């Protein structure tokens, strides 16, 4: 590693009102390497990348690109200098086509400087082919599945042909199949000599891809190590600052009587080729059991949980029985009354109330328990909320703090706390650890384990198989809305599950 760094970050500091996101960060990226950045939620990874890619223009410290000091005023400058980024959050215009999104801001011009849509569509389709993604460049981004949307983002970054590519948690919304595709793309890029900065909370990815790993904690660079001289334990230790002992979940956990019985659940999908979002699904959930749902992106896991929660906008067919009683769930409130709770997939969009403070976010579902006749007893509300946040160990400046000031993991804890306050019998977790760092993950696992021991049933989905394998007693596999497999802890392996997940409707039907 003697060649001079292509990127050099010299004690960069970034302050946001209230928080110091980065503090004297110094970091060097060598040309052609894949450099992974690790850190807890809120460590400052995305902020650093935003500075590198010109999204954040005002910061202290200096930035050198292959020796020359640069200061990006906008993303345009960064792109001109050959830096492109895939942001952590999806940034697509749903009303525009895939091609339009890929070339947004860099539209190809043709005759008289008019827009040349055809050229863009051709270029887009070739890019998508490179990503092994069979989306027609004219389909509107809004009609795509989350996974494909993520791939559009990647294609967009690739279309720049820039020699520095930043990927901020590109796989957080992808499942194994798509991830492995992404790996192949990355391989090709590296052959092309592209320098890649890669952020992920998934250790296996980091160690599969990275040459060197830099760990950030609380906005400071802790250490930069080359993959060969370290292991995931050490990295996580550096990230969290303490040991995370891998305890064996579910050991001697007793599953009791049947809590929930779902038979022939089907969810029609109006005006779509695949006329069922979910088709003929039957399963049971016992007390003290963690039931996992695996599947590729768009397999229908979210829809399933929504059905169980009465939140699907079309009423499902089939029967849902709770303790032998058939439920009629028309609205989430019905499910709440029956003691069912759902922690939604998309925290920002479906969970948080950004205008409310931490306490109010936690207490929202249990307000009527604080006082009588629809009145709120503030002190009681606050007391309940503080108990919950203590129990879950939410790291916050106080209940009156803005929810947006918390890191992803802690926000997630608040939402889980919101539902635990309703003392549910069944807890539905839709991808609860998306974008949550290892430390917080471990705590969530422990929490789930504890809840089961207290005798509630948990159904969870996840885009990470290892997670399901560690946490779940049983794993059911969905594929294109069909139930294609069921394994208990003993027999479940990644291979079997992936096989079932990719089986698809054809094989089931035939």
């Amino acid at each position, binding site marked *: 590693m003697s060649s001079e760094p292509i990127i050099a970050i010299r004690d960069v500091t970034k302050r946001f*009102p209230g928080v110091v996101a980065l503090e004297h960060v110094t970091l060097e990226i060598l040309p052609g390497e894949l450099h992974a950045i690790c850190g807890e939620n809120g460590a400052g990874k995305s902020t650093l990348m935003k500075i590198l890619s010109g999204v954040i223009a*005002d910061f202290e410290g200096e930035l050198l690109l292959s020796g020359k000091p640069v200061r990006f005023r906008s993303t345009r400058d960064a792109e001109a200098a050959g830096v492109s980024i895939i942001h952590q959050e999806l940034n697509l215009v749903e009303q525009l086509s895939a091609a339009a999104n890929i070339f947004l801001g860099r539209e190809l011009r043709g005759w008289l400087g008019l827009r040349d849509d055809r050229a863009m569509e051709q270029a887009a389709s070739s890019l998508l082919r490179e990503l092994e993604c069979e989306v027609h460049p004219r389909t509107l981004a809004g009609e795509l599945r989350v996974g494909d949307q993520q791939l559009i983002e990647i294609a967009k970054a690739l279309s720049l042909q820039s020699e520095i590519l930043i990927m901020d948690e590109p796989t957080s919304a992808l499942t194994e199949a798509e991830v492995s595709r992404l790996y192949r793309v990355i391989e090709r890029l590296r052959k092309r000599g592209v320098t890649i900065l890669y952020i992920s909370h998934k250790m296996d990815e980091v160690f599969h891809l990275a040459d060197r790993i830099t760990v950030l904690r609380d906005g400071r660079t802790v250490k930069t190590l080359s993959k060969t001289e370290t292991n995931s334990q050490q990295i996580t230790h550096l990230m969290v600052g303490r040991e995370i002992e891998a305890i064996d979940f579910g050991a001697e956990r007793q599953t009791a009587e049947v809590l929930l019985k779902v038979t022939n659940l089907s969810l029609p999908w109006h005006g779509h080729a695949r006329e069922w979002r979910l088709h003929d699904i039957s399963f049971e959930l016992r007390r003290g059991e963690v039931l996992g749902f695996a599947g590729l992106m768009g397999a229908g896991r979210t829809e399933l949980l929504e059905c169980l*929660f009465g*939140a699907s906008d079309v009423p499902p067919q089939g029967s849902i029985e709770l303790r032998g009683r058939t439920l009629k769930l028309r*609205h*989430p*409130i019905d*499910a*709440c009354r029956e003691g069912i709770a*759902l922690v*939604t997939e998309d925290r920002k*969009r*479906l*969970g*948080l*109330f*950004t*205008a*409310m*403070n931490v306490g*109010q976010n936690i207490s*929202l*579902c249990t*307000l*009527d328990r604080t006082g009588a006749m*629809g*009145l*709120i007893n*503030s002190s009681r509300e606050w007391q309940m909320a503080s108990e919950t946040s203590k129990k879950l160990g939410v790291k916050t400046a106080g209940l*009156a703090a803005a929810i947006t000031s918390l890191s992803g993991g802690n926000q997630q804890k608040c939402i889980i706390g*919101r539902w635990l306050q309703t003392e549910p019998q069944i807890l539905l977790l839709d991808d609860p650890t998306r974008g949550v760092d290892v430390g917080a993950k471990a705590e969530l696992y422990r929490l789930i384990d504890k809840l089961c021991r207290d005798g509630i049933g948990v159904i969870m989905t996840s885009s990470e198989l290892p997670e399901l394998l560690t946490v779940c007693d049983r794993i059911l596999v969905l594929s294109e809305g069909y139930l294609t497999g069921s394994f208990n802890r003993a027999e479940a392996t990644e291979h079997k599950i992936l096989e079932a997940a990719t089986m698809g409707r054809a094989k089931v039907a035939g």
Partner: protein
Amino acid sequence: MSGNRDTAKSFLYSTELALIVAIVVVVTATALIDSNHTYFNKPEVSVRDIARNLSLLGIFALGAAVVIIAGGIDLSAGSVIAFSGTVCAGVLLLLTPETGPAPAGAVVLALGAAVLSGLGIGTLHTWLITAVRLPPFIATLATLVGLRSFARALCEFITFQAQGSRNSQIYVNHPALAYLRQNVWVSFVVFAVLALVTWLILSRTVLGRHIYALGGNEQAARLSGIRTENVKWVAYCFSALTASIAAIFYIANESVANPVNQARGHELNAIAAAVVGGCSLQGGVGTVSGTILGVLFLRIVIDAVAKIIKTGSDVYEGLIVGCVVVLAVTLTQMQQFLASGRQVFAGVRGICAIPTLALTAGLIAMVTFGPWVGLGVGVLLLLILSGIKVGELSRNS
């Protein structure tokens, strides 16, 4: 935000404080500049006049605020006032005997009819928004246009039934309404009570919290087991209800139900007041206290204009209200603004904005105080703003 537990610190930066300061400033300024010093010489009169207008606007500004907090918008208030007013006066007219005023029962019926019409309109809005899925802006825009003309048709119909001739307004001379007109305290008490109730609901009840939740994030609210559609129902009914209560005082005050132009455009004053009072059109943010102060501020300013500019003040009223709204909203966002070191005149846009602003200010000064003052103001502002721009440029490089 959501009304409860304002700590001392958060109050320091709150819209409320900014408004209180602004109000005090305006009042003292008026008291001093006004050559008659009416505020000193005839305090009771001034207070009464302001109180009257305050309550009249305030009553339905509360409704506007609730809808805005719930993440919606209600453009129809003005027309609802015209409509409910016509209903009220119409019922009264139909129940008035040949000789003498209508019996007490008739008055009660009339008021009841007005209130009911309000609730009906609220329900209609909710239906259009939740069942037909119209955007609130469109639904209430449609009623804004529709209800007024409906009220006119109704007015002609009723007067034809009662008096045999189609009239475009209905006079109300019933002693009860005259009493409302002559006793400002009634409308003020009604306003105070409504405000108190609204404050209670918003900051002390589950329903109130649900309103904030709905405004803050509708999907999340639904997934938290909130019957969002019913909450909307409450919000829009409340808004229309307050408007129809205001309608009663409107017709009492003008002693006529005049669907053609009664309260025309007043919905915008209400919305402006709510926004000045810190309600965010994104929803989920806003307080009753802020709204009340917003209304008070608006009325105080209008009163000040009338007191200071003695002649043709109404020509300038709109202009000044417009500027004030901008300034107020800007003021309440000042400290965020300063915190983020944003440029005021960024790029070419900024360069074009400078002469525009200077020209505007200059013209305003010119038409108000004559050509030379105008020229002076314009040039001065041009220099100042250019100075700022230069400063920003140098600061940047």
